[in-house]
């Protein structure tokens, strides 16, 4: 029996793939199936060719697979767009003219006149809902569950839109049901779970956004840039409810200076951007560090250099983020590998930034942000929002020299003291100085915080055989795909470390590296940046590199091939 089904919807931008993905994922989840969805799309608003992959399973699924069990092409070009992923097992559903009978070999086909059915209901716009109905029936969802979801989804729409969508869903469901009840349907039998219905369906974007709100973010300034904009939109939508000030800056330079100014005056501020935007922010990053002002910066990676591939994925900005900014100063770089970590690390970033008065990065990528899966509701009240602020006294000195390098942080207007900060080298009062022995003390003070930060490093997740010969090292969004791969190929003599914090680097790493006969990094870039960072930090060379840099995430299939080969070396 098949434990999972991989469904792919493919069509032009503007054909409503995103809504189909939402409906389908929601109905599957409410039916008690585990769902994972991810998408790849072109940098255009209309036309081109995009696809969404929805994996449904009886077990948790968290990563991208190439194989397609059911393909729904919404356009004659759809089949060709994903032809490498089609096999003799693939069922293609859709309008007859979209089911390519050319050279591509696939399994069965199920022609359904989505548009005609929709037209009968009253508008061709309902054809995607017809398709969702067909798919829901094929995987064995209950009609009522789907109809109920559609009802809620379109509840705010007037003019019979809700009713007609329910009708369209039902018509599609009938089509799918008659196929399922025939010979073909035996293929797609999944086990359902009650607990999945209590899960949340969350994307990486929502994970970061929700984490920011839970971390006490009350000030967001940013300039729109793919794939980072979604986080801003999520927070903006919740801003009224949580009293968050949201500002669209005139550019990224303004955005980061607003964030620095905001923290100075007592806000818990964040910005969200991608590599190109962050390039403009590096001056402000250096400023925050000189002023010892906390900062939370979400950086969503996409392939570069320059504009690169704006809507696609990559892990190319790791070393840029770690070494960005003029001068020397401490920072923290979190690299969530799951939606759970996107939430928990973004939330933690605010307290950590505030406690140490340093910049904390959340380094994600398009793949993680645009992926969704079901997960249990995160604990939201197990961590307090801690404002590390003091009410100042008359004698207050913003940069008082202390043992751990952290000076109590006051803000203007709270207490009797004055809060002076200066981008020039400054004395304990915050006043400009060229006293060179004092300059040395101030450098020492700022760098001293690194020691405290090392004490707060989040250790990597270890998976596999403690008695490993091969040690695989990954960071960020590769986590679930590597893990699923190892579950599949077995972990005999294989260990895997997933890093959700890459800077400062976990101090115990050297010991792990020394225990391995062979070390391999897995990264979505062309030069093995994490491997370089490890060598630079530990003095240990990395033997193998599994790299991908065409703008797409690793699939499980290619990870299986790559790691299988690596562990044999």
């Amino acid at each position, binding site marked *: 029996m098949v434990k999972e089904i991989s469904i792919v919807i493919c069509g032009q931008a503007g054909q409503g793939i995103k809504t189909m993905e939402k409906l389908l994922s929601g109905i599957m989840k409410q039916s008690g199936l585990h769902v994972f969805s991810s998408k790849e799309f072109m940098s255009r608003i209309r036309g081109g060719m995009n696809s969404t992959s929805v994996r449904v399973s009886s077990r948790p699924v968290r990563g991208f697979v190439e194989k397609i069990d059911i393909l729904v092409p919404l356009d004659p070009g759809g089949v060709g767009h994903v032809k490498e992923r089609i096999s003799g097992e693939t069922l293609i559903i859709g309008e007859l003219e979209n089911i390519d009978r050319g050279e591509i070999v696939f399994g069965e086909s199920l022609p359904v006149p989505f548009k005609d059915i929709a037209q009968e209901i009253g508008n061709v716009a309902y054809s995607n809902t017809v398709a969702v109905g067909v798919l829901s029936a094929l995987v064995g969802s209950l009609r009522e569950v789907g109809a109920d979801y559609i009802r809620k989804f379109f509840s705010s729409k007037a003019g019979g839109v809700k009713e007609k969508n329910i009708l369209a869903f039902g018509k599609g469901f009938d089509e799918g049901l008659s196929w399922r009840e025939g010979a073909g349907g035996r293929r797609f039998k999944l086990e359902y779970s009650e607990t999945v219905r209590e899960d949340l369906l969350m994307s990486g974007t929502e994970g970061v956004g929700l984490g920011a709100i839970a971390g006490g973010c009350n000030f967001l300034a940013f300039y729109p840039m793919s794939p980072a904009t979604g986080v801003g939109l999520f927070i903006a939508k919740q801003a009224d*409810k949580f009293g968050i000030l949201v500002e669209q800056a005139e550019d990224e330079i303004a955005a980061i200076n607003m964030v620095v*100014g905001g923290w100075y005056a007592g806000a818990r501020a964040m910005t969200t951007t991608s590599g190109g935007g962050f390039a403009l922010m590096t001056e402000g990053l250096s400023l925050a560090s000189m002023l010892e002002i906390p900062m939370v910066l979400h950086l969503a990676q996409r392939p570069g250099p320059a504009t690169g591939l704006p809507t696609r994925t990559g892990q190319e900005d790791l070393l840029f983020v770690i070494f960005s900014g003029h001068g020397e100063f401490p920072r923290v770089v979190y690299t969530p590998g799951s939606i759970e970590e996107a939430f928990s690390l973004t939330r933690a970033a605010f307290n950590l930034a505030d406690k140490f008065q340093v910049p904390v990065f959340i380094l994600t990528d398009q793949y993680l942000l645009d992926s969704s899966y079901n997960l249990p509701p995160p604990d939201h009240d197990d961590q307090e929002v801690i404002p590390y602020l003091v009410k100042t006294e008359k004698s207050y000195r913003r940069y008082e020299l202390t043992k751990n390098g952290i000076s109590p942080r006051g803000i203007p207007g709270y207490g009797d003291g004055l809060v002076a900060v200066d981008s020039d080298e400054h004395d304990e009062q915050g006043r400009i100085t060229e006293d060179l022995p004092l300059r040395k003390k101030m450098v020492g003070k700022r760098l001293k915080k690194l020691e405290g930060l090392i004490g707060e490093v989040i250790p990597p997740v270890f998976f596999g055989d403690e008695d490993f010969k091969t040690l695989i090292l990954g960071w960020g969004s590769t986590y679930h795909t590597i893990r699923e791969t190892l579950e599949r190929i077995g972990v005999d003599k294989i260990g895997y470390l997933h890093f959700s914090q890459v800077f400062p680097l976990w101090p115990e790493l050297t010991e792990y590296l020394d225990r391995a006969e062979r070390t391999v990094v897995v990264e979505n870039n062309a030069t093995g940046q994490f491997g370089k960072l490890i060598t630079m930090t530990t003095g240990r060379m990395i033997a193998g590199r599994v790299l991908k840099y065409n703008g797409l995430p690793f699939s499980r299939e290619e990870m299986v091939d790559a790691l299988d080969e690596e562990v044999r070396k």
Partner: protein
Amino acid sequence: MKTNVFDMGKIDIAWCPGCGDFGILAALKQALTELDIKPRKLVMVSGIGQAAKIPQYLRCNYFNGLHGRSAPVAWAIKAANPELTVIAASGDGCTYGEGGNHFLNIIRRNPDITHLVHDNMIYGLTKGQASPTSREGFITPLQIHGVILSPFNPLSVAIALNASFVARASIHDLEGTRAIIKQAISHRGYALVDIFQPCVSFNHINTWEWFQENTYYLEDSHNSSDRNAAFARATEEGKFPLGVFYVRDGEETYGDRCPAYQNNKEPLYRRRLNMIKLRELIENMKNG
């Protein structure tokens, strides 16, 4: 001079002897004292340059940030805590050159802050290159054949953007400058004061005498609520008018319009995360 609460006592001031900045500092301190502003409630924000050192010489909170970036910082401080009085002060190069885009956008935002621009028509700290307001033909060690760019006209730009308060002062008249600064700080909304000042070390054309001879005050009959008249006066050829060109009283500020302050007047530092609403939000995500 009388002492006031903003005096720093005996400190080393980095400006050249005879610099116009001393007068601006004196005029500002006097205006602040007359308005009874408390040092602990005042934040001075500046960029980089000789003018941008002014916060160092006042007893108050200050943020001396990056070249060109004082506007977004000043906006953010006022946005995060509307209870503070915020004054941004920097030079013509910092504000109109490096910070040009920020200058346009802070006017559009209309925060209730004061923006003082020390305008000496030259780069002082980097030793004498042209600034955005240098006049055509002005010879410098960099513009060796003279400036060939048209000068930036900050007042006409601000009026074009419908700024809520637009004025020009010249520090050769300290008393007049003090009065204009005082009006600007009292104004509710964004207030720009471009302040002419001589650079005694590098600008030997636009000197104390030159400013005295080439400026005059707007007549009492000037209607500062008339935008077209203000624009005409800001763009007229010849001598430079001083005074308040344009005022829009009673206009909503950023703080009045900002959604984050509609139902909650508390500054951000006094707000706490609403855990009940957070739980509700998470619950709602169950529906996908």
